[in-house]
């Protein structure tokens, strides 16, 4: 098997209890790299895309890339790939920490979970030994309690744990998988799929050595890339010093910091909740790095109450902050801690509460539906904390909120107030403020998402070069390149943040030295294109229509009401046809036979 791949996958059927180890064909690794790409290929081949995501027929795949578990900078990433319950699309969710590297060291590139157990179980992996164990005593526990108990009873105190909290058990449509207590495969509801299989956790202990195809060359290449990242002002200074919350003021001053459920792009209390405030108020204790990461953007924080945890990150701070009109950094951090403990995606949780606030303030959610809960008013610290808990346990209105903003708003007759794409909540950039980023939202294969082609980088941050936010020319091509490159990074097992400093050539260098595959940079980018198209094919077969490549009406019709980009709306009608064209798809958004042939798909 070439280089840093383990070359094996674990197939575990929870209905039958059968555990199998299989070889992964080398030609698949070469075509799909690993991680997101490889798992998408297995999912595409093995499940009917129209399957109910929460049925035993869906499969849940945990996957690493060729650089996961190696010293490559940020090489600690793994992905969870499945059909998502929030969107009905292919769902793939990425996480850092240490769990992915441990899985690779145990000798597996991937775990495919099938079927459904009758009672709660967890999976224990110690290198070649794999067992399905009873987890009845863990059902109902939060992710921290679960992790502590499993480390204790497995007798492997240095093992790594990925698990779900009560939200996953209750099939909250945006429940996440939490590993190492604080890192989340956050988006698309992968935790609900895990819960539907009655799988509480996967504990891994690995002791094998990962050796590159050309170890000497690999070490040399890695050293070069780490050096590039250390010297880069973003990965070497901005992100280490302020974490992702370096962005609050940048995005707000540029007028696209979504406020009060995206009604405007400027939040007047940003100074109270920004990354700078987190430092100045003394809540930040220290930074924390994931496996093999020279950046260390994680934040360990402690509130005046003595409660300690990780976060908030930019997205989380915003989702509970500006999106809900809340300026109380303590309540925001508390809601973040709760999401980690209960196993909830912070973006969807915050934005669903923001949607409920708008529905309530407009009189569409009647007061009696709140049961004993506080009023859903923008700015309410009490509401964000209360409803986060209510969602995880599906209590009172929490049961409706647990379905996500789209189904909530639809149930109250006003789906237009759900700020989502393909039913997944949008993250912390108002699309009216960056046309390329808007196109990325509309076309993301996993629904509303900023990390499938982060156009904020060129449009706002000026990396790798500055593009004008409102110009349309060339944006479709940029989006395609960013989407393809991101698919490569996700498949290689690296963190997207490495791309602030590294380019496609850098990724190619690392993958080639690790695997021995004779890729050119163009070959690697073609893998990205292939992965993107395969995900698109899955979605089309799942019944997701190209008409869903769109945005909420608010962004297409209501101009930004204030700030430096006042008056802007998303010009999707002009952007989308160009995008389909550069993708080599038909005018209707379907990959052409010619394109699929070029990519050796089908």
């Amino acid at each position, binding site marked *: 098997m070439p280089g840093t791949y383990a070359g094996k996958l674990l197939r575990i059927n929870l209905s039958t209890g059968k555990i199998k180890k299989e070889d992964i064909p080398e030609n698949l690794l070469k075509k799909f790299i690993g991680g997101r790409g490889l798992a998408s290929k297995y999912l595409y081949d093995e499940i009917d895309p129209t399957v109910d995501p929460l049925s035993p027929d869906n499969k849940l795949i945990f996957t690493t890339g060729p650089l996961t578990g190696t010293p490559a900078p940020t090489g600690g990433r793994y992905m969870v790939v499945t059909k998502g319950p929030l969107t009905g699309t292919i769902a793939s969710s990425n996480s850092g920490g240490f769990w992915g590297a441990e899985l690779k060291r145990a000798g597996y590139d991937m775990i495919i979970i099938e079927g459904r157990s009758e009672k709660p179980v967890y999976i224990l992996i110690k290198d070649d030994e794999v067992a399905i164990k009873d987890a009845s005593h863990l059902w109902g526990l939060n992710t921290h309690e679960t992790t502590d108990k499993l480390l204790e009873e497995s007798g492997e105190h240095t093992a790594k744990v990925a698990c779900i909290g009560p939200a996953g058990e209750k099939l909250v449509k945006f429940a996440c998988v939490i590993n190492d207590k604080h890192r989340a495969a956050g988006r698309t509801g992968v935790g609900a799929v895990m819960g539907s299989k009655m799988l509480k956790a996967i504990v891994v202990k690995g002791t094998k050595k990962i050796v590159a195809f050309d170890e000497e060359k690999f070490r040399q290449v890695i050293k070069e890339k780490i050096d590039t990242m250390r010297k880069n*002002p*973003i*990965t070497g*200074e*901005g*992100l280490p*010093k*302020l*974490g*992702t*919350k*370096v*962005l609050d*003021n*940048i995005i707000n*001053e*540029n*007028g696209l910091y979504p406020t009060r459920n995206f009604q405007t792009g400027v939040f007047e209390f940003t*100074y109270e909740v920004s*990354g*700078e405030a987190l*430092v*100045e108020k003394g809540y930040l204790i220290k930074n924390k790095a994931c496996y093999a990461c020279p950046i260390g*953007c994680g934040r360990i924080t402690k509130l005046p109450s003595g409660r300690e945890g990780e976060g908030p*990150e*930019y*997205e989380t701070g915003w989702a509970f902050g500006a999106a809900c009109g809340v300026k109380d950094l303590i309540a925001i951090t508390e809601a973040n801690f709760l999401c980690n403990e209960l196993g909830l995606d912070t973006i969807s949780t915050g934005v669903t509460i923001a949607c409920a606030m708008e529905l309530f303030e407009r009189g569409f959610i009647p007061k009696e539906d709140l049961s004993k809960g506080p009023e859903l008013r923008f700015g309410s610290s009490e509401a964000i904390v209360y409803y986060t808990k209510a969602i995880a346990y599906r209590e009172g209105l929490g049961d409706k909120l647990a379905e996500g903003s789209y189904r909530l708003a639809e149930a109250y007759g006003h789906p237009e107030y759900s700020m989502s794409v393909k039913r997944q909540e949008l993250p912390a950039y108002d699309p009216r403020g960056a046309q390329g980023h808007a196109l990325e939202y509309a076309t993301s294969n996993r629904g509303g998402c*900023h*990390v499938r082609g*982060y156009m*904020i*980088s060129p449009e*706002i*941050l*000026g*990396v790798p070069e*500055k593009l*004008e936010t409102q110009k349309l020319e060339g944006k479709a091509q940029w989006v395609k390149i960013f989407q393809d490159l991101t698919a490569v990074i996700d498949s290689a097992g690296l963190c*997207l*943040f490495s791309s*602030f400093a590294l380019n496609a050539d850098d990724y190619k260098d690392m993958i080639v030295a690790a695997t021995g595959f004779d890729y050119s940079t163009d070959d690697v980018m073609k893998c990205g294109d292939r992965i993107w198209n395969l995900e698109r094919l899955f979605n089309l077969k799942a019944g997701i229509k190209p008409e869903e490549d769109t945005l909420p009406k608010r962004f297409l019709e209501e101009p930004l009401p204030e*700030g*430096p*980009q006042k008056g802007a709306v998303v010009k999707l009608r002009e952007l989308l046809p160009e995008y389909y064209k550069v993708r080599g798809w038909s005018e209707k958004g379907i990959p052409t036979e010619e394109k699929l042939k070029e990519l050796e798909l089908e």
Partner: protein
Amino acid sequence: MKIKVKFFTLLKLYLGIEEYEVELDNNSITVNQLLDILEEKIGKKFTFKLREGGKLKKGVIILVNGKNVFHINGINTIIKDGDVISMFPPGGGG
């Protein structure tokens, strides 16, 4: 003329200053001239994060009334009375 300069992220933390008002006899100055003035008043630790070889460093964001100077006239962008200038060293996240 009177202008307001707002410092963010690492600049704010390093300098311990959030806002700075500059009063000048001129009717207008360029961003480059403003950087010279601020360097004189605040010190070099301020500009080395922003400027290199007479150009703005890659990823530096300077906004004049919310508009990125990159799309106006870069470091030679004109600043007038009453303008608000926001300054950020390179930053990223997501």
